[in-house]
């Protein structure tokens, strides 16, 4: 094996692109997924704003999006991607499909975490005259913080593998490099280097996530 042939500047650039994609897509995933998860929770059966038709409709859309294999979703949303960011290529072009794939997933994780919050605590807050907004901000979110952090970690790690896949449609980043050099040109060294970087990335993210969860667990 000869790693001297590997173009390190190119690897460096691809790593930065991956981090760029990951950061932006994670940010938008959380911005979309968190409110969506809160709405799902609030309108679910037995919750504060129970609304069964609404819940069923949102739930269906989420399930549909989650059933799509990412590779297919990525291609299917190209027109929408062009509309949103003007291109379907590069880091920018990869953000919409990544968010569309990950946000419903994250919303479900948020819903599940919120459901873990003790009903009694919510009732206590209501008895103290808390408004719905206060219940969300001062009870639900702080009480479910460890679960939310775990959800953020899982979602980010999932996004790492999605960003690699987006290389298939010219998304750039480490996945793109692995496909072009490693797969199409049989340069297995490049393949190995990218995979190792991705593994390291996942390890680091998971470690940070676990630490944060631990830091905020009070049970």
């Amino acid at each position, binding site marked *: 094996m000869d790693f001297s042939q590997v173009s390190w500047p190119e690897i460096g650039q691809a790593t930065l692109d991956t981090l760029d994609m990951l950061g932006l897509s994670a940010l938008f995933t959380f911005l979309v997924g968190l409110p969506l998860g809160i709405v799902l929770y609030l309108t679910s059966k037995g919750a504060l704003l129970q609304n069964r038709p609404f819940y069923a409709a949102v739930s269906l859309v989420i399930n549909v999006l989650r059933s799509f294999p990412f590779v297919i979703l990525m291609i299917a949303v190209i027109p929408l991607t062009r509309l949103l960011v003007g291109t379907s290529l590069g880091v920018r072009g990869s953000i919409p499909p990544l968010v569309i794939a990950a946000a419903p997933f994250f919303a479900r994780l948020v819903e599940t975490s919120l459901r873990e919050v*003790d009903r*009694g*605590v919510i*009732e*206590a*807050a*209501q*008895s*103290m*005259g*808390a*408004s719905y907004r*206060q219940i969300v901000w*001062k*009870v639900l979110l*702080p*009480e479910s*913080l460890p679960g939310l952090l775990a959800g953020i970690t899982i979602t980010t790690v999932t996004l790492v593998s999605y960003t690699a896949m987006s290389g298939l449609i010219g998304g750039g980043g480490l996945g793109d490099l692995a496909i072009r050099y490693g797969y199409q040109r049989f340069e297995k060294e490049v393949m190995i280097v990218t995979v190792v970087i991705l593994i390291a990335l996942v390890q680091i993210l998971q470690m940070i996530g676990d630490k944060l969860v631990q830091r*905020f667990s*009070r*049970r």
Partner: protein
Amino acid sequence: MIRLEGITKHYDTGSRRVTALSGIDLAVAKGEIFGVIGHSGAGKSTLLRSINLLERPTSGRVIVDGTDLTALGTKQLQEQRRKIGMIFQHFNLLSSATVEDNIAFPLKLAKTPKADIRRKVSELLELTGLTEHRFKYPSQLSGGQKQRVGIARALAADPQVLLCDEATSALDPQTTNSILSLLLDINERFGLTIVLITHEMHVIRSICDRVAVIHEGTLVEQGRVVDVFLKPQHPVTLEFVEQVSDPVELPPAADLAARLLKITFLGERTYEPILSKAVQATGVTFSILQGTISKLKQVPYGQLVVKLEGDGAAIERTIETLRADGLDVEVA
């Protein structure tokens, strides 16, 4: 202070309709400790939750401190709820907040200035004996300490009413007593009106002024604790009374030369030698067949079943003397 008028609550579960409460009328005076006792499923929890409308009754009116809560909109109701503190069987503290922050919670909801919050929280920590635990999280506290945090939190917004939902049911007997005496102390110190629900007669006997017995969604008996406790009318009430003391029952009369009496003493009279003075004057003899002497809240009481033996006329005179002394005497 609190008036419930014709409270009825139905739950519709699919095709079946379950009636949790039917036609409840209740009035709680300012500054009193009012207990509602009932078995689980009797509707006591629903009754308590309808006072602050955590459960909205199907029909009826809830009036707290002159305001008809059932007529209010969401915003105004949230405003009114701040005047009604509540504590819970499972404490329901924020696990992600320290003792201090839990107590400050209702004040933060009401957007109270920081300096006022700090002062109030310190006062409450002192009152509930939690000062040294102020930076701990609920998971680091014992059950009794958690309930103290619950009480401090409920008092933070200076409520006029405190609702207690089985507040001592998850605690051991010793801790139960310390929580009960804290509640009594608060009631006396601040003139706070307390409504509590429980399935333990011990709780009613220790701190309540008046009691209502709830059974299958209706109040089957209510009145002063002494009256309900000493003369239970409904079979369910009797069951509860038997939790804390053997029933003192008057057996049927046996022979003619003797009379069986059930004598009830109340208050300071309990400790006076009334019976012994009466028999000395009339010359009859007595033997105690059964009896109990204890306290209700701080009021001593006694119930004795005695057999009087002697001359028939002397026995009659003894009974009259006892009655003239203000004792409650039942003759078999």
